[in-house]
């Protein structure tokens, strides 16, 4: 998982990227993020994953809420819907219900997801909507320029907590595991290759997958989740971690002092689309059964 540190030459890199076909997934708009923001590597990871999966840009929809992270759709060459603060998941659900053929990816920040949009996550997870939710987790509100977020640590000083944050942070991974999400994983923006691989797996999973991406906000968080701090905090999941064991996953997720990278949990179960298909079958079944009964009665 550790990235090999060797010098990178611009021409070589450009050549490599062009050859890879990844650029097909990048839009012509340049990201508006602050230089050094962890979000850049998430775009890179996403385009690499989409390229590897060979999903067509025309059949992909990226849906976001509002926030720095949520600017994502403008930077990829897919269909995109930049919706309202907190509402990426319900909009994405509507898209998937209406057109099962589309690859639907929701992207957001943690305020978008767990503060204003908190009501939607349990339901997207329990319904098992076949989509991928990639959360860019800086522990502060970026777009509104530095206020506490639901994952801000105790004691964090921000614009809205000048006397230090007194509200305990949420544990999103434990929440998602208990909501019944079928795929739960964690990655770090500072490890781009692993990140790309995790996005790949999350999209490939059939059902609702949640990828928690730790990412530093270089502009507003100079003290807690910086590249320097996160670099030493993160660890790999234990070699023998059983990703079908929900309780073991919970145990790993509880260790917030040392965030683990990898797939915490995965399980296949029927998706929302499967359920809706089943309902259509039953509705039609009763109708034909009714017709059969009528035909029998007529014959008698």
């Amino acid at each position, binding site marked *: 998982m550790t990235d090999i540190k060797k010098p990178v030459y611009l021409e070589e890199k450009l050549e490599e990227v062009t050859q890879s076909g990844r650029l097909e997934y990048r839009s012509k708009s340049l990201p508006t993020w602050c230089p050094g923001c962890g979000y850049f590597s998430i775009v890179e990871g996403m385009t690499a994953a989409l390229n590897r999966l060979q999903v067509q840009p025309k059949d992909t929809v990226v*849906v976001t809420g509002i926030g720095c992270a949520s600017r994502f759709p403008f930077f990829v060459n897919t269909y995109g*819907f930049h*919706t309202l603060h907190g509402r990426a998941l319900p909009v994405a659900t*509507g898209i998937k219900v209406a057109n099962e053929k589309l690859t639907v990816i929701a992207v957001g920040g943690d305020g978008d997801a767990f503060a204003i949009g908190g009501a939607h996550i349990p339901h997207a997870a329990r319904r098992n909507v076949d989509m991928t939710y990639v959360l860019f987790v800086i522990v502060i509100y970026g777009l509104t320029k530095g206020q506490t977020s639901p994952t801000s640590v105790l004691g964090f000083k921000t614009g809205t907590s000048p006397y230090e944050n007194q509200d305990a942070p949420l544990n999103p991974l434990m929440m998602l595991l208990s909501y019944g999400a079928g795929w739960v994983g964690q990655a770090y923006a500072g490890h781009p290759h692993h990140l790309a691989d995790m996005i790949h797996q999350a999209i490939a999973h059939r059902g609702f997958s949640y990828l928690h991406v730790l990412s530093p906000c270089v502009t507003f968080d100079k003290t807690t989740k910086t590249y320097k701090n996160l670099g030493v905090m993160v660890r790999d999941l234990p070699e023998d971690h059983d990703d079908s064991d929900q309780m073991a996953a919970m145990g790993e997720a509880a260790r917030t002092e040392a965030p683990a990278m990898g797939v915490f949990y995965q399980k296949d179960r029927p998706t929302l689309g499967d359920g809706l298909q089943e309902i259509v079958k039953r509705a*039609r079944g009763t109708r034909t059964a009714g017709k059969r009964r009528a035909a029998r009665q007529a014959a008698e």
Partner: protein
Amino acid sequence: MSRKRKPVTDIQIAICGSAGDGTIAAGDILKRAMARAGYKVIAFDLYPAEIRGFGKCIARTRITANQVYSMKQKSDVLISLDDSHAIPHVDEVCDYGAIIYEDNPMSKVEEGGHISGHAAPAHIPYGIPFREMSERATGSARSRNMVAVGYIAGLYGMPQKIFHEIVTAKFKGKAAVVTTGNIAAFDAGYEAGAATIRLDFGVLESRSRRRGKADLVMMNGNAATVRGCLDAGIETFFGYPITPATSIMEILAAEMPKTGGRLVQTEDEISAVAAAIGAGYTGARSATATSGPGLALMTEMLGLGTIAEVPSVIFVSQRGGPSTGMPTKTEQSDLNLAVFGVAGDGQRIVLAPTNVEGCYKCAGKAFEMAEQYQTPVIVLLDLYLSNRYEAVAFPEKNPFVRKCSKGVSRRGTGSPYSRYAITDDWVSPRAVPGTEGCQHAITGLEHDVFGRPNDQAHVHEMMSRKRHEKLEAAINHPDITISKRFGDRGKVDVGLLGWGSTFGEILEAMFVAQKEGIKCAAMKVVMLSPFPKPAVVPYLDDCAEVLVPELNYEGQFADLVTSATGRPVNRLNRVPGTPMRVDEILAEIRRLADGAKQMAAE
């Protein structure tokens, strides 16, 4: 009784009982049978507000030979299946009207507990042993309600055979004894009714069963709304239960999957409208349904629908407000929220049908409009309209256009696709996900023609104009009544102007006023936004006085009319939670007519 029985053409029957007495079911059979027999029928049921076992239910049915537009203030017959609930309604029985009740109660009745003690001298009491008759006919007291329906049918000489058909249809799929039992109970009542000496009753004038080709179907506003959705080809629906809109979702849940449609019960109204907009974005016909409190939650998302130009249809059945207000009472107080409820300049299309057939039309047309003008469309109903039954003749041919989208022509030009291109009619060709070569992002941020965020002055000015101008065409949308004038032509002393369910009462009042010799007209406005000024202004020109009766305290429609046309209007505002009273409208018309005459004389 020597008096010859005259044929009657207008009777209103109220059946009152507690939940579990079969009150609503009895009313249902009565109205369906009379509609099938060719009469005009309007019915409005009242359910208990609280969910306790023995809440009060009233089923009111008005049966007429000619089309009428509202319920009557007074009923001709009150049938009591439960005296404790029915006693407060003795007042609503007209003079020489009948009160029909159980004359052999099971247990001893307290002083004042029996309805016969409450009837006025002008009422005609009929004590009937419902319970005994039911037991004799079916071996159980459960069919008391059917005995009661049979009795009233016999009393008025209603066609017995049609009742049998309706009862059979109602219990289709249940055990055969259910049908035979109910018919036996009905017949027992019918015989007793037919043999009763009538004091003042006439016989219902008989009707030919079928008029024209179309069959008359008894339906309430919500069911007609659903039929409109289905005929318009609805593909997805997302909703969260709320009175009085819930039955729209419940009927759709049963019907949509039969044609492959998909319905999801969401976690709240925000997600319901969000998902409807998400589905609309993919090109699917999608809708949600709610009431005022839900609409309040939806407003932010509707603004997104407006700026991102995504079609969706929102049905809103109003109830008493503000806040949780009066969930089981009717009101017309969400007009402001429907028309103006949005952050920023967010005009949208708002339709408000005035009767059950209108619910069908507006529902179907809403999908066309949403798609054609790329915008959210609100269809504003209210509890009275949602639950009111009318005999409706549906067109034989599906009247709705299935594809109204301005799509992109074949792509592959190499130039970037501009989702918000400025065109002659201000509507841009729309590419939905899956279209090759048109990848783009849409957003709730102000944007340029490509959909890229842009807040420059000229961009915001152009896009604001685009979003407003494109809707103007909707007031000429084909095959839908946007507004309509009734009554006297030309100049009138009093012109009524109304919207929504109250227009029925307005018409009734206008007819009476005309008979009294008042020069009077009435106009209904179905499209509340954009406001159909070209039709309304000339009408206002014709009226010496304009009266706007509506069920809200603030005069929301009156404000809308005045702000759109610059003309002052007279207001009649009531918030009883029940339909507007025809006599109150009439009193206002008379007062204004007198004033208009005096003015003319001076």
